């Protein structure tokens, strides 16, 4: 099969050559340091999963930050996008930017360290106040928006236990022994959410079946033949792509079968329209993974996936071609893109498997922190699976031989 010539043109290239992308400021009101309850001034604030709001542990007051779509007008004007627009939390990571940052406690003056690789909060060890990092520094730790957990841990534990229970027979014996779904961790994973305004153009050929019939190829054997009409086919259209999400952690992008990162990808989609403007307090009690890729790193993946989306969007007009269409030339002309970084909620059960040859692999069972959708990888007891497959093969050979013999007799 010949690969169609795929092109991706960017009408904004000229604009990019003399300037930087348009930046959508998303941390205008953010402040790092002590983040206080607006009612009582305490800093013990965390997400109440039941209500989806932030709650003060002292006075029980609840509030939430604004919806990100409304605050940054993300749901409007995809068809008007030109050039590249990016949230300020999606800005390029500066290699010299520190990952471990020091803040001065606003209550007692102590110097407090926050390791942004896995969190954007730390507790002052002197006065016990909690310090938050909400301002965006160019190290990828603070995104433009966050989608808070709405699925409680108990539900995630149930989902994981049920998923594994259905896969016990061929599970590795050590895994069966050590499996404990209570060890699930809530993690906010970094994603880039991209809106694309583009023009798609596909040309190729398609076939429409006009007749199906049997022909005798020997005395006791007939084969099916088909007649078809061949057409030159072209589809030319504008396409708006909303909320195309790509994970922005280099480690999670590796979804080959030697990892189990693909199962985390498989629990999507997330209801991104309910994401809110960033506040570190949503992450209290959870872990987070810092973004370590830039827009330029992810652009080739977004372009490939955008072309997939456009190709699929043309399907509804191809019903006549019941034998299929072969696109020889595909072109996606990108008029505009909007990139926004986000933390999305995932309950993760991880199992580190040490293999006999010294290699190791981490198996994940992941639960969507919003919808409860679950997917996972369970380490296999290969001797048992191979033996059982061999038994099935022997049975298959016996049955197959009997059928062949019956066929010869009849």
């Amino acid at each position, binding site marked *: 099969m010949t690969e169609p010539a795929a092109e991706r043109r960017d009408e904004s290239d000229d604009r990019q050559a003399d300037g930087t992308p348009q930046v959508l400021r998303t941390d205008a009101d953010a402040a790092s340091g002590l983040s206080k309850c607006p009612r009582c001034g305490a800093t013990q604030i965390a997400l109440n999963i039941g209500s989806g709001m932030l709650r003060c542990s002292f006075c029980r007051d609840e509030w939430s930050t604004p919806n990100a779509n409304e605050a940054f007008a993300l749901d409007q004007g995809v068809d008007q996008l030109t050039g590249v627009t990016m949230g300020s939390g999606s800005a390029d*990571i500066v290699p010299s930017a520190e990952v471990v940052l020091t803040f001065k406690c606003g209550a007692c003056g102590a110097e407090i360290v926050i390791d942004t690789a896995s969190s954007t909060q730390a507790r002052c060890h002197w006065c016990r106040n909690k310090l938050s990092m909400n301002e965006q520094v160019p190290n990828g730790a603070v995104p433009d928006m966050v989608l808070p957990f709405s699925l409680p841990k108990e539900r995630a534990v149930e989902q994981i236990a049920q998923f594994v229970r259905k896969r016990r027979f061929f599970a590795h014996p050590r895994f069966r022994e050590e499996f404990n779904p209570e060890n699930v961790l809530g993690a906010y994973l970094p994603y880039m959410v991209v809106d694309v305004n583009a023009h798609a153009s596909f040309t190729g050929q398609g076939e429409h079946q006009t007749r199906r019939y049997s022909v005798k190829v020997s005395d006791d054997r007939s084969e099916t033949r088909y007649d078809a009409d*061949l057409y030159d086919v072209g589809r*030319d259209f504008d396409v708006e792509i909303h909320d195309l999400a790509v994970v922005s952690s280099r480690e999670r992008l590796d979804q080959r079968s030697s990892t189990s990162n693909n199962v985390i990808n498989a629990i999507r989609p997330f209801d991104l329209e309910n994401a809110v403007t960033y506040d570190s307090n949503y992450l209290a009690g959870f872990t987070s993974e810092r973004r370590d890729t830039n827009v330029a790193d992810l652009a080739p993946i977004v372009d490939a996936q955008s072309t997939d*989306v456009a190709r699929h969007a043309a399907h509804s007009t191809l019903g006549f071609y019941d034998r299929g269409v*072969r696109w020889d030339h595909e072109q996606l002309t990108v008029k505009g893109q909007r990139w926004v970084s986000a933390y999305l909620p995932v309950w993760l059960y991880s199992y580190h498997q040490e293999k006999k040859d010294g290699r190791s692999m981490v198996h994940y069972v992941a639960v969507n922190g919003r919808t409860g959708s679950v997917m996972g990888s369970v380490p296999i007891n290969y001797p048992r699976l191979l033996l059982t497959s061999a038994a099935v093969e022997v049975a*298959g050979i016996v049955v197959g031989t009997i059928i062949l013999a019956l066929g010869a007799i009849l």
Partner: protein
Amino acid sequence: MTRLAEVTVLASTDSGDWSSVGLLFFAAGFVFYAVMYLRYRNTDKRYQHESRTRTVTNDMRARDEKVRSLKGLKNSRMRGANHRSVKGALNSGGGAAKLMSALGRHGTGR
């Protein structure tokens, strides 16, 4: 095993040839292994971005011009049909997987 049974029924209905049905059973062990492997490891699972991403299309212009009629084709599907192909899946051997490997060598993170 259900899939194997379906394949078997289809094959028998289509050709009525006992020998092909019998030969299918010879692959039972390999099919069982593959089905179980995928059930436990789920290496084939991914988010279907091509169909599940919200899309709006406008100003669709179609061109369909008959070229000629084809007779006596052996395949039920068009040779080289690729209108359902997906190239941006990260867990396949496709283009995106190669781009991802390049990212591993030249990525930004420390």
